[in-house]
């Protein structure tokens, strides 16, 4: 275990540093402000939004610009040689390391920040998308005359704050706190139109289902605390390093207390517990059902929270503690299987949806499945790469959908659109770029990342992991379906003849809508340059920028235990996952995946490209019904709640109220009855009391007499 010396640990500096000079290294001292700017905008929008022009949007825009600028600065700093930066910002339990609490429990609860290449990359993504969504909201919310805008922008601000703070968390507990907070923001924003019926219900559903997963996560956090005494992500004393040392026979480490099972079994349990939160938040099977309903929220919210960032929190968490997961082959296999299955499963449902945003919602679930597949399959860089490109092109698609929704006067049914291509060319061009990226067509961003996901899974799978091969099969099949549903959506929305009067004469959209689309559209086209893994053999490994980035190759100091190469080492180590990599040229699998994608797109073209396309999925008959009803997932989950949990709760209620309360009430009743009888001696007549006293005394005398043997 080397390299953690690279961490600049400044434990104990509890105050946010003042900045006076802006020398290069000082940018790290400013890092907390990345999240604090949106927090300030939250308060400003909430309390002053009514009096401000644009309902507080400007504060949010200014804050996200500042966050983005700082994040980019961090990236530049790391790119030209800065080291990883870790700082404890605030210790809320424990205080000084020699305090009584720490001595007694060995536990210190802190908020801190950890800036490494992964976090810096994610900070840029989140603040960029947040900025663009704020801009887009000017067109989507302000221009449409929505009320409650201060509440809306306050929600966005709070969300951006929570998400950024989650990203730079340096320990699992802090990550959990902000993980929950983004969930709260999601709840608030899905239910933005709370006067209607559907949004509050969808908000509750999203909250409850993600909370179900977070319940396991919470237990996991506590269990990790109990096992390691720390939840730090990085450093010599992080739980990740301790776990690795505990399993590595070459390192003489102190034994780790596990409750009666071997270390690797216990770590697997810990990993699976944390995975519960990941599955809930990243909408993986079987906890994915909240995401399609979350589309009830405003479309920019869907783009920011339910496509690009919050849903990414789960995947990001796995990447953040990948050094831990890489030790656990069982957990990795579960991650890969869940991911692969979700990718395919959600894609099938996306095939038959009629609402634009529903297709995108299922597509999002499917794409997060790919990221999980990559991480489970040992492709750390691939997972992060797909996270990056997906954030861009899916935010683009959602914003494009938002633009279409404005144009269609909030009608989302694709069968009532058609022909929008000529009437909104900017939206069409950018939406097409996003769709090509989503479908994985060369050379758009999604092609490179999705291919890398599949390639990594295949390479590790062929090394002797049949489970990964199954997951790869799911993923590869989903590529075809992705091409099909994506271009079904494109053809139905933009091509052919307009099928309604609204589509004939759509509302125009302003610059605030077009600008974010163009920015994201350009990024969707060129984003693949980050990591052209398919061409690895041609361009050389050193030109895989993201790989080099995540490996810490741009930094002066060694990234050590947080680097991609360290993760590969652990994955391949005997004490780790024990994966083996087959030496495989990425070109072959890349071409296969591209062919699959083209087949899907071609099928969509064949089925839906005419001037007046007809519903073709109806030919699927009952299969279509099953898909439209989402495999009855909602029904069985509702049944789990009402059919299983409720009767069980009733029995528990009966037990509680019958037996437990019965015993308590019985004791009370007995006391009362006895008391009611006994109080009769209190007649209120003084004479009686005196008689009682006198005769009791006599009795006592006799008793003493008998005992004392007087008689």
């Amino acid at each position: 275990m080397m390299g953690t010396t690279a961490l600049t640990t400044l434990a104990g500096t509890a105050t946010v540093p003042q900045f006076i000079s802006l020398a290069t290294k000082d940018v790290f001292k400013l890092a907390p402000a990345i999240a604090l700017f949106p927090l300030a905008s939250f308060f400003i929008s909430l309390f002053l939004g009514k009096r401000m022009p644009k309902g507080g949007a400007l504060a949010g825009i200014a804050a996200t610009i500042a966050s983005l600028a700082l994040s980019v600065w961090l990236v530049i700093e790391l790119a030209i040689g800065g080291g990883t930066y870790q700082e404890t910002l605030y210790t809320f339990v424990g205080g000084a390391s020699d305090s009584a609490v720490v001595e007694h429990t060995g536990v210190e609860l802190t908020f801190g920040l950890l800036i490494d290449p992964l976090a810096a990359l994610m900070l840029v993504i989140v603040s960029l998308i947040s900025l663009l969504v704020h801009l887009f909201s000017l067109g989507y919310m302000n221009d449409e005359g929505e009320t409650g805008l201060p509440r809306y922008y306050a929600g966005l601000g709070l969300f951006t704050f929570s998400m950024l703070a989650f990203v730079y968390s340096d320990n699992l507990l802090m990550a959990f706190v902000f993980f929950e907070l983004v969930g709260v923001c999601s709840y608030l924003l899905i239910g933005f139109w709370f006067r209607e019926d559907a949004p509050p219900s969808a908000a509750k559903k999203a909250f409850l289902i993600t909370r179900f997963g977070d319940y396991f996560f919470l237990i996991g956090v506590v269990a990790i605390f109990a096992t390691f005494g720390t939840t730090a992500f990085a450093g010599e004393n992080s739980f990740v390093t301790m776990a690795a040392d505990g399993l590595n026979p070459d390192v003489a480490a102190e034994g780790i207390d596990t409750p009666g099972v071997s270390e690797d079994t216990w770590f697997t349990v810990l990993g699976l517990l944390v995975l519960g939160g990941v599955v809930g938040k990243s909408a993986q099977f079987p906890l994915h059902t909240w995401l399609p309903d979350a589309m009830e929220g405003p479309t920019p919210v869907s783009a920011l929270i339910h496509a690009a960032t919050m849903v990414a929190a789960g995947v990001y968490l796995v990447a953040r503690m990948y050094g831990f997961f890489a030790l656990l082959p069982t957990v990795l296999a579960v991650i890969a299987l869940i991911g692969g299955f979700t990718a395919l499963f959600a894609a099938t449902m996306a095939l038959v949806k009629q609402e634009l945003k529903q297709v995108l919602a299922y597509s999002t679930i499917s794409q997060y499945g790919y990221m999980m597949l990559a991480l489970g399959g040992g492709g750390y860089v691939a997972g992060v790469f797909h996270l990056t490109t997906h954030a861009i092109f899916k935010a683009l698609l959602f914003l494009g959908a938002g633009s279409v929704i404005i144009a269609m006067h909030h009608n989302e049914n694709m069968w009532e659109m058609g022909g929008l291509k000529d009437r909104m060319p900017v939206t069409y061009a950018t939406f097409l770029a996003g769709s090509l990226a989503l479908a994985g067509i060369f050379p758009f961003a999604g092609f490179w990342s999705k291919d890398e996901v599949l390639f990594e899974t295949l390479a590790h799978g062929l090394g002797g992991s049949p489970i990964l091969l199954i997951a790869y099969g799911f993923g590869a099949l989903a590529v075809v379906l992705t091409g099909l549903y994506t271009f079904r959506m494109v053809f139905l929305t933009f091509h052919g003849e307009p099928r309604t009067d609204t589509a004939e004469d759509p509302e125009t959209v302003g610059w605030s809508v077009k600008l974010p689309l163009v920015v994201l559209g350009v990024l969707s086209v060129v984003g693949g340059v980050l990591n052209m893994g398919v061409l690895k053999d041609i361009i050389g490994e050193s030109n895989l920028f993201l790989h080099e980035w995540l490996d810490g190759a741009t930094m002066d100091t060694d990234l050590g235990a947080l680097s991609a190469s360290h993760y590969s080492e652990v994955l391949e180590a005997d004490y780790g996952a024990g994966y083996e990599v087959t030496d495989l040229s990425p070109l072959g699998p890349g071409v296969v995946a591209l062919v699959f994608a083209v087949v899907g797109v071609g099928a969509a073209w064949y089925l839906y490209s005419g001037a007046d396309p007809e519903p073709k999925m109806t030919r699927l008959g009952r299969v279509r019904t099953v898909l439209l009803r989402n495999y009855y997932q909602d029904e069985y989950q509702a049944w789990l709640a009402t059919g299983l949990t409720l009767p069980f709760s009733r029995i528990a209620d009966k037990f509680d109220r019958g037996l437990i309360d019965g015993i308590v009430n019985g004791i009370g009743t007995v006391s009362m009855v006895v008391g009611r009888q006994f109080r009769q001696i209190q007649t209120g007549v003084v004479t009686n009391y005196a008689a009682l006293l006198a005769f009791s005394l006599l009795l006592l005398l006799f008793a003493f007499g008998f005992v004392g043997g007087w008689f």
Partner: protein
Amino acid sequence: MTVSVEWYLLLSAAVFCVGLFGILVRQNALMFLMSVELMLNAGNINLVAFALYWGNLTGQVFALFLIGIAAAEVAVGLGIILVLNRNFDDIDVTEATTMRW
């Protein structure tokens, strides 16, 4: 000639029993007060008798205290009886039972 201490104790017991009897059978609160007085004085007799028996004055001094306490008790008792009369128009102790359960 001295009277032996048993006689005093017998007298004391008799006076005490008369007082106790009065408390147990009378209904008039004034009679109560008098009966209590009798019982206290039975105690006084005891104290004085024992003082004589042991040949020291402690018992007699206590008897003086007891007389003082008895006077105080009568003052309090009469006050209670006045209130009793005001509230119930009577000083029958069996009437004043409104404070029970």
